[in-house]
């Protein structure tokens, strides 16, 4: 049972019009979200990372091809981080005001400014996440709704194809697909999206099945509404909540999987930055104590994934009436 059906059943009594119900619901959800500390943290991280991801490419025109300065290879962080680490270590202490600020997060093996690359990499990784989830959500929902609502052979064929994809080891499927299509960020994103389609398809199919036998869908049918229009106007809006939740959770997975593809050299092509690839490249530097090469991209990934996952969990709590409890 979803929120809307419950309220709908009380409609005749309270005589609220639909807009007011919706507004009331939204306010209710936001209120619940605000009360939940996970949602506040998650929301902050998500909004902050999206803002940075949009602003950085607008403000800074980055030409990665020309960004190479071998004399600054593995330059440790200066500026604030450099000052902080110098306080921790037994080195000659330099006042903060005298520290230069050329490499606030240090430089990588090609002598490139890590802060700048983390900014642009964040932007790429987030776009990847949204793109992957967008594709798999759209296709998955289309398949799932069709299967759930039309049943019969459509359901059999589409759900068995989803099973095939699910039964295939997902990272290996992505690797194989990228190898077939050629290594590039776009192909990597499409490959990951394909491996995520079944999750959305299964979810939306089960939503469609649970909704198709409800009173209001029956009612819509009885007044002659076609399958497609019922799907669009009734089933989809009612499945939205769990789908949004699933989507925020999958966003994190998409970013991590892209990182794994980047680690295997199959994602973003150099010299353009992507967080996962930056992390993969930092591996050799770790044992020799060049922590900054790994720390900053790593921390950024952790914060993004954490942010969207916390937000997703909190959304689930807020949207799903069964989880509301007596708060």
């Amino acid at each position, binding site marked *: 049972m979803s929120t809307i059906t419950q309220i709908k059943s009380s409609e005749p009594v309270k005589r609220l019009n639909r807009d007011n119900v919706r507004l009331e619901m939204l306010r209710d959800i936001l209120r619940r979200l605000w009360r939940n500390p996970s949602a506040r943290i998650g929301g902050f991280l998500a909004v902050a990372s999206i803002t940075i991801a949009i602003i950085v490419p607008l403000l800074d025109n980055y030409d990665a091809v020309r960004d190479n300065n*071998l004399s600054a290879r593995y330059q440790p962080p200066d500026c604030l981080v450099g000052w902080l680490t110098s306080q921790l270590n037994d080195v000659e202490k330099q006042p903060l005001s005298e520290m230069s600020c050329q490499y606030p997060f240090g430089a990588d093996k*090609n002598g490139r400014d890590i802060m700048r690359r983390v900014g642009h990499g964040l932007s790429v990784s987030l776009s990847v996440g949204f793109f992957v989830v967008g594709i798999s959500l759209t296709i998955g929902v289309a398949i799932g709704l069709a299967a759930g609502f039309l049943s019969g052979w459509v359901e059999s064929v589409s759900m068995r194809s989803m099973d095939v994809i699910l039964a295939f080891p997902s990272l290996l499927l992505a690797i194989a697909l990228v190898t077939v299509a050629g290594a590039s960020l776009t192909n990597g994103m499409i490959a990951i999206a394909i491996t995520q389609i079944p999750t959305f398809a299964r979810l939306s199919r089960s939503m469609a099945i649970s909704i198709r036998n409800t009173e209001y869908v029956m009612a819509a049918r009885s007044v002659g509404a076609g399958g497609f229009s019922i799907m669009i106007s009734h089933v989809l809006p009612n499945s939205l909540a769990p789908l949004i939740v699933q989507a925020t959770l999958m966003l994190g997975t998409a970013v991590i999987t892209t990182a794994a593809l980047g680690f295997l050299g199959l994602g973003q*092509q*150099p010299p353009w930055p992507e967080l996962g690839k930056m992390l993969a490249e930092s591996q*050799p530097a770790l*044992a020799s104590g*060049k922590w900054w090469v790994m720390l900053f991209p790593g921390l950024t990934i952790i914060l993004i994934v954490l942010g969207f996952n916390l937000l997703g969990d909190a959304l689930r709590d807020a949207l799903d009436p069964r989880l509301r409890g007596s708060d």
Partner: protein
Amino acid sequence: MRRVLTYFSLAMVALIVAVAPAAAQDTTFRWGAFGNPVQLDPALVTDGISLNVTNQGCEALASFVGSTTEVEPWLAESWQVSDDGLTWTFKLREGITFHDGTPFNAEAVKWNFDRWRLSDHPQHLDEEGQVYEYYEAQFGGFDDASLITDVQATGEYEVVITLSQPMGAFLNNLAMSNFQIASPTAVEAAGAAYGTPEVGYVCTGPFKFVEWVPDVQVVMERYEGYWAEIPGNVTRIEYKAIPDNAARFAALQAGEIDGFEQPNVEDIPTIEASDNMYIVYRPSFNTFYLAFNYRIQEFRDPLVRQAISLAINREAIVDAFYNEEAMPANTMNPPTIAIGFNPDVKTPYDPEQAKELLAQAGFPDGLSQVNVLGVDENGNITDEVVDTIPVRLYYMPVVRPYNPDGEAIANAMAADLAAVGITAELTSAGDWSTYLSERSRGNLLGLYQLGWTGDNGDPDNFIGYFFHDVNRPLPREGFYQNEEVAKRLQEARALTDPATRDALYKEAEAIHAAGADRIYIAHGPVPLAFSSRVSGWVPSPFGKELYKYVTLG
């Protein structure tokens, strides 16, 4: 639930405390390799790991002297060649037995050669998927195609080998790991299973095969009946598979292994500064290059190629990404080669002149798009422009002894090119197999990285391998063809006099370099990391190191 958790954590703590450090077995040498051997029959494999293992237990008629590319007699005591260079007589060492007790004699040697070269030999087994890759490559093919036309046992310890044409690199070939002599009895008994984990190898060398657990380790033990002296004290070898580069270094630090090949450049200072570890360099016998695909119309102009050569700062690349023993390359043949290195060829770094040459070639505003020419059915390039594409720079998606970090080097190269006005797009085309496949079909349409490690020390296996074809441009060499170069390489191949061959190879290098036909970047000696308890390591330019020299402290 809490109780379960408590017990669980107690158990974990008990376990951690109880894990005592493994008692070091004094004379077990543990090597960390990046993978599993493919097969332990050296005649059938081409990969370094398999050969590294069989080198410990198998021997050939000839061998390389210490850390050089010179050849000395080994299972053969001496040899003689007829004046026409076609008949070789080998006198074999006496009193040697294989690990299974089979005597080593002329019949056994003949049996091995016949197995390699004759497709109807009962143990050739090509139907069952046995591929004699290197025999085919070094001796032209099998049966009638084989340059070895006859092998006869003319005495208990005398073998005569007849060739169809003289071969400058014959003895170097015989010293290669792929031509190690196996026990005929053992191969006959095992059939196609010879060399698999169940059987391993049965040869004459200082260590015999004990066990191979796939993806874990190959174990070898000292062969008590070995015919020669063993300088070191290793009694057991554990050749372990540790695929992750960082894990191998960690394993050395933790004392789980005694040595491994090619640590990250970043880790070398750490190892050198440590009291428990040290570095040995394997003399460089490789070359890293940037090849042109000659289907790109612009790259057919020597001025453009010269400009690109002048634009790339080899010195800076070697300083940043290679170890301290590496050097920038000017030619295909490395300085360590016995003959055929031309020290007079120089390839300077001069971006200003590069810009001028580009302008002279008609690209004063630089280059970002190029034309692709068509290929006719005979494999020749036509004048027709079939496509216009961005300038591409293909980087290798793997680490190789000659190329420690293809991607980072490509980044640096792209920046160098951008500085003279050439905007290149970087791509790996996919994984390593895709890269190689596209390369051999001539589909890497742009500049592409690749390199070569010599197999036998002869220039015919170096520059000669690449450019000797006079008939048509080879797709796998980016449709490169230079008849002047090819003619000299063909001539040198069939000669046996070192001085004449040396001169021909030097000429070929000079002609090749004059047009900047291909860009040579670096020769990279491979670093090897060891625990300080290891001494006596004798590095080999081919990576053919023998653990019998190792002494463990």
